[in-house]
């Protein structure tokens, strides 16, 4: 069994390079379009814009800032949505209290930061607190109504209403900002030219270090999840569970234990994302439903239950919100939903989803 699997894997790996060439051979027009778009995007980002171009599209600084903000916001959305999609993919639970977990994590992280003064430690606290709530939800509620999709969804909806009201009770309605730690505070120069002064001096983009650090962390977490999924035993169990839960349990694996672990991990990720959100923007009343909706849109666009889909969807939605905020102010948020509608109409299972 295992040797056969291993052999298959190796053959796949060897052929992967050819697959790209073959794909280009089969779709020459699409490949050309993609190549042109990539080159155009690289030019837009790296080269200084000519004056006439800037007159039409505005300052390059605005565009590049929106682009960076979009990508880093995409990183935040990925952290929230990957937990949501993981839970959905394995257990078919639509956890409408996911936004509440995000907000709860943010508040707990804020409290931990106030007590200990350590920003990194607050992530641990938020992860553990939300994981505990997640385990409680899984054991006390979901396990008791296995297979009743609608009831589970409604219960999480009720929970989210109660949680959000209780959080208002404890922390009030005012926005809370989590302070950036000193070692990540302030902007850093990036090698991207935004303008050339008349004196010939080039101006490089300055960007907040903390956002870049969080983006890097999101990428590390994403790659780590991908590796854990595809290279470890528990990842194999999760993938098997996503494909056929009943068969996995018939084979003697402890599916319920797996469920608890995955639920705890997804909830913990949402909690950590709460701190990221609190550092990026702020956490306040109403952010729970905002981030629940963001994760919904991200997983609908990317494909439900797919981690790479969540990454792609998060990037698209983050970019569309930030670019939209600069170029179409009246319709910024609607743009993200418009993308969702188009994806649904063309590919109801999402960009990377499986039927």
């Amino acid at each position: 069994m295992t040797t056969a699997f291993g052999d298959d894997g190796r053959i796949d790996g060897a052929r992967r390079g050819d697959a790209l060439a073959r794909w280009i051979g089969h779709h020459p027009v699409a490949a050309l379009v993609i190549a042109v778009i990539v080159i155009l995007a690289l030019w837009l980002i790296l080269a200084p814009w000519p004056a006439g171009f800037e007159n039409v599209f505005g300052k390059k600084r605005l565009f590049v800032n929106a682009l960076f903000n979009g990508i880093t916001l995409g990183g935040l959305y990925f952290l929230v949505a990957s937990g949501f999609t993981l839970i959905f993919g394995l257990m078919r639970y639509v956890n409408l209290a996911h936004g509440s977990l995000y907000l709860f994590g943010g508040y707990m992280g804020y409290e931990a930061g106030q007590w200990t003064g350590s920003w990194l430690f607050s992530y641990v606290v938020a992860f553990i607190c939300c994981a505990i709530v997640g385990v409680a939800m899984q054991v006390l509620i979901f396990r008791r109504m296995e297979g009743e999709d609608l009831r589970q969804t409604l219960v999480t909806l009720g929970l989210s209403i109660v949680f959000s009201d209780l959080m208002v009770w404890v922390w009030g309605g005012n926005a809370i900002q989590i302070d950036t730690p000193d070692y990540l505070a302030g902007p850093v120069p990036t090698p991207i030219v935004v303008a050339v002064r008349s004196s010939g001096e080039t101006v490089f983009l300055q960007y907040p270090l903390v956002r870049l650090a969080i983006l890097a962390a999101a990428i590390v977490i994403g790659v780590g999840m991908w590796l854990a999924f595809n290279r470890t035993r528990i990842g194999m169990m999760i993938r098997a569970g996503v494909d056929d839960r009943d068969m996995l349990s018939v084979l003697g694996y402890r599916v319920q234990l797996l469920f608890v672990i995955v639920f705890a991990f997804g909830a913990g990720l949402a909690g950590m994302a709460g701190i990221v959100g609190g550092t990026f923007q702020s956490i306040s009343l109403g952010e729970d439903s905002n981030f629940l909706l963001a994760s919904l849109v991200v997983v609908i666009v990317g494909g439900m239950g797919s981690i790479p889909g969540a990454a792609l969807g998060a990037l698209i939605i983050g970019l569309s919100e930030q670019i939209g905020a600069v170029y179409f102010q009246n319709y910024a948020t609607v743009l993200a939903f418009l993308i969702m509608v188009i994806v649904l109409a063309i590919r109801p299972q999402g960009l990377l989803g499986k039927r």
Partner: protein
Amino acid sequence: MALAQTTGPAPLAVPGEERSGALSRWVSRHAPILILGVLLIILPAVANSFILDQIVGWAMILGMIALSLMFLAGYGGMVSLAQMTVAGVAGYMIAVLGTSSLPAISLFWPWWVAAPLAIAIAVAFGTFAGALSARTEGIYTIMITLALAAAFFYLTLQNWPIFNGFNGFTTIPPPQFLGINWKDPIPLYYMILFFAALSYVAVLYVSRAPFGLALQGVRDNPRRMEAIGYNVTAHRIAAYAFAALIAAIGGVLLVWQNNQISPFSVGIDVVINILIIAIVGGISHPIGPFIGAIIYVILRTFALDGLVAVGLDGRRFQTIIGLGFLIIVLFSPDGVIGLWRRWTAHLREAGGGNAR
């Protein structure tokens, strides 16, 4: 199942007894509705305008919007959270096309053009929402319709040229015709009662018509219906269109009754409240949403005072609503109707025991 059990012993009885039994069963089943109808018609004779307008009238409008959700969820198996949004589209359109305090946006068309057009636009929107979500199933529908509802909320919040952004519209009066000013509490009450009763009867009728039966078949086993030759997607989209019509009428009435509409009339919490109303009332019978709506309106109006009276913080209203919703979902999946059915079944059993 329950029906099969109650009619099970019937062949043993003589035909005459069976018929009178059926008649009495029909009366006993419909008596509560008939009594309720009479009570609602004579209510203006005894109640003041606050109760007519702010309690019963509001509950009937919310009940209509929740009824459109109940129709989709109960008979079609599609829990659409976009029904309040459909009502909101109709409400916004009546403000844009008809009369409001904003001459810069409103077109001031007469009500008999504005109202049907507003309803038609809302039905088109509801059908579009249905077409988007009908190709997916079950819990996907909730997610997609919730996202659509959020999209409309943000659109109204951010868009000033058509929806007047944050402020929305005020002073949108009900029309005057047949020599009656429908703005007065009693005419407005009867108008709302008429449309609520009409939509109730319409849903009941459609649920027993061939279309409704086919829809219930689609709910129970889409694959088999497809195999028999029914167009599953078309049935679902048609159900969305019918539900949108009810929600749209409810939306127009809501605006006429409230005299205003703003993004917060179609916010996420309102959208979710409609779902709560339908679920708490029960989605197995069209009366459920109206029961849920009257419970919600009474709680909404009096819970603050009630909470303070028993020494609790009145601001924890949402917790009470959420906990009540949780209890219903956890212990009586069929809502208040389920409780009522269980209670009457219990009584019947107890009565049968005594007779024996």
